């Protein structure tokens, strides 16, 4: 397995602010690798470190074995799709796409034909003569993608590329990116704050918090086996139970998380854990209903399927309710 991008103890500080704090990761060639985290968690700074727009305060960065720690962006075999596309407003779409080839001194005819092919690839073949300002958000996004891909980068960096699109278009583009990744076989490094996007598209996800990596894992493991309470909370929804309540339920004060969908109101055999609380809120969400239950000082949430329960069968606000869950679905968290 070839390593595409390798961070060794990389930090990026701005004065006292540690935007990236001692991050060590390696991304394999051909991998779809996502960097997930809330805004200000350091994921975008990491991407900019790979692209070369920032230099690390300490640590080293290798791209396919080449020490890129202090190399300028134009010496790296990576290309970026920017969050707001960063298309050149004074050039038409074709010139935008051909730009990377032109500045590298590729023959003019070849630049044009390769740019045209790249535009075909993103289904914008007839838009070459237009200016970026005349395109819709989704079209600009495709141009930005074509402009990066025409250079045949070994690593494609995507900085929240779908952030500005509406939901339908975003889902469609997610699908297209996934297909494109399979076709091209190159490494994708994808920055997003949308956990469902990261889970559905990636081979592996790195979860960032406060400039540090909390966990790097496959989407399934991140969801099923979160290591920290941050990951449990940020990836999907979790009930994180700690302190006295944990003591009361498990007999130990180690925190644990339990997903709302794993909590049940039936006392089946495998449901060995239980706790009693009071219903404080019921929200209707179409396919299911979300129930908020107050246990001691903490509120736990659970979901009940609306196909399996009629309205009359749902608990009522103020009612006392016993919650059950299997021990196997509890995830013990590092404190």
């Amino acid at each position, binding site marked *: 397995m070839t390593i595409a991008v390798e961070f060794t103890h990389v930090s990026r500080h701005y004065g006292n602010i540690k935007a990236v704090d001692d991050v060590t990761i390696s991304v394999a060639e051909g991998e779809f690798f996502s960097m997930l985290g809330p805004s200000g968690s350091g994921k975008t700074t990491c991407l900019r470190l790979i692209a070369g727009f920032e230099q690390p305060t300490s640590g080293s960065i290798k791209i396919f074995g080449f020490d890129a720690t202090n190399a300028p962006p*134009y010496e790296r075999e990576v290309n970026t799709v920017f969050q707001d596309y960063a298309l*050149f407003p004074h050039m038409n779409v074709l010139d935008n796409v051909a730009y990377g080839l032109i*500045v590298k001194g590729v023959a003019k005819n070849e630049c044009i034909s390769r740019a045209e092919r790249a535009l075909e690839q993103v289904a914008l073949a007839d838009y070459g003569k237009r200016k970026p300002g005349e395109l819709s958000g989704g079209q600009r996004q495709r141009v930005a993608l074509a402009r990066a891909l025409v250079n045949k980068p070994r690593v494609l960096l995507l900085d929240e590329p779908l952030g500005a699109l509406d939901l339908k278009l975003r889902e469609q583009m997610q699908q297209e990116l996934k297909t494109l990744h399979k076709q091209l076989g190159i490494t994708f490094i994808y920055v997003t704050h949308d956990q469902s996007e990261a889970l559905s598209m990636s081979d592996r996800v790195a979860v960032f918090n406060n400039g540090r990596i909390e966990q790097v894992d496959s989407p399934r493991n991140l969801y099923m086996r979160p290591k920290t309470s941050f990951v449990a909370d940020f990836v999907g929804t979790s009930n994180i139970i700690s302190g006295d309540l944990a003591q009361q339920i498990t007999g130990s004060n180690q925190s644990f998380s339990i997903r709302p969908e794993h909590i049940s109101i039936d006392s089946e055999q495998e449901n060995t854990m239980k706790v009693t609380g009071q219903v404080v809120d019921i929200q209707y969400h179409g396919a299911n209903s979300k129930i908020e239950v107050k246990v001691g000082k903490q509120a736990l949430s659970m979901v009940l399927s609306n196909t399996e329960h009629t309205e009359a069968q749902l608990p009522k606000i103020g009612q006392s309710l016993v919650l059950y869950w299997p021990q196997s679905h509890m995830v013990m968290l590092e404190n």
Partner: protein
Amino acid sequence: MQSVISNPALRLFSNTLYRKNNLFLFLLLTPPLLWFGVVYLGSLFALLWQSFYTFDDFSMAVTNDLTLANYRVLFDSTNLDIILRTLTMAVAVTVACACIGFPIAYYMTRYGSVREKGFFYIAVMLPMWASYIVKTYAWTVILSQEGILYFIFKNLGLTGALESLLQLPIIGGNTLATSQLGRFIVFTYIWLPFMILPIQAALERVPTNLLQASADLGARPAQTFRKILFPLVFPGVVAGSIFTFSLTLGDYIIPQLIGPSGLYIGTMVYTMQGSIGNMPLAAAFTVVPIILIFLYLALAKRAGAFNAL
């Protein structure tokens, strides 16, 4: 809901203005349009009209017989000299202002911290708060043989170099203060802020990520400058150069105070309408800068100055 305006007449008026947007615009725009149309354009057309009047050399009187003679006189070799001299200076000053102004504006925009930016703004604008005649007089002192420039050159042991520079034809002269070079320096100094500010405003509008995208796609800094930054800032350079170019073309103070004798368009107009009273020829001379600036704008448009707007 209770209306804020209790007077019913006032309320009717205010609501009418709100509903009839055109009426509101009409009321808003009439005073400035009157000012612009009557006072500004009116006086300009009056001036142009006078350029067709006849000036009698013997009686020194102006009659309103229409003639093209004043425009013919513009092409006399002495007058053509004046026009060429002024035009050359205006082009040189514009190029120098752009070359000096761009790096300053670039630094202000890309590298300056908030404090530094404030400092630069004040440093650029401060000279504009002083009367420009005072500044020009100050320069006569700076450039004179007893002035600070000569003093610096002397202490650097470069007096010889300065002397041989002043020996050069066209730009040279007896002293810096009486040379075209000195005049050029003062012009450049006086009009520089008018170049820096539009360039700075244009640079400010170029998002940093365009430059990063260019580098990301493999462009070296020189390529990024040539293909991305400069084309996007070019309208700002043109805006600044329109100021420096037209201000130099029309100026009549600096050529009188600094540099060798020999008239400029501005000083020619000043002489014609003041001491000689030949208003028609003065008016014809003022048409020259107007035409030159139109030509300049046409050239700038062909060079694509307004494509990125």
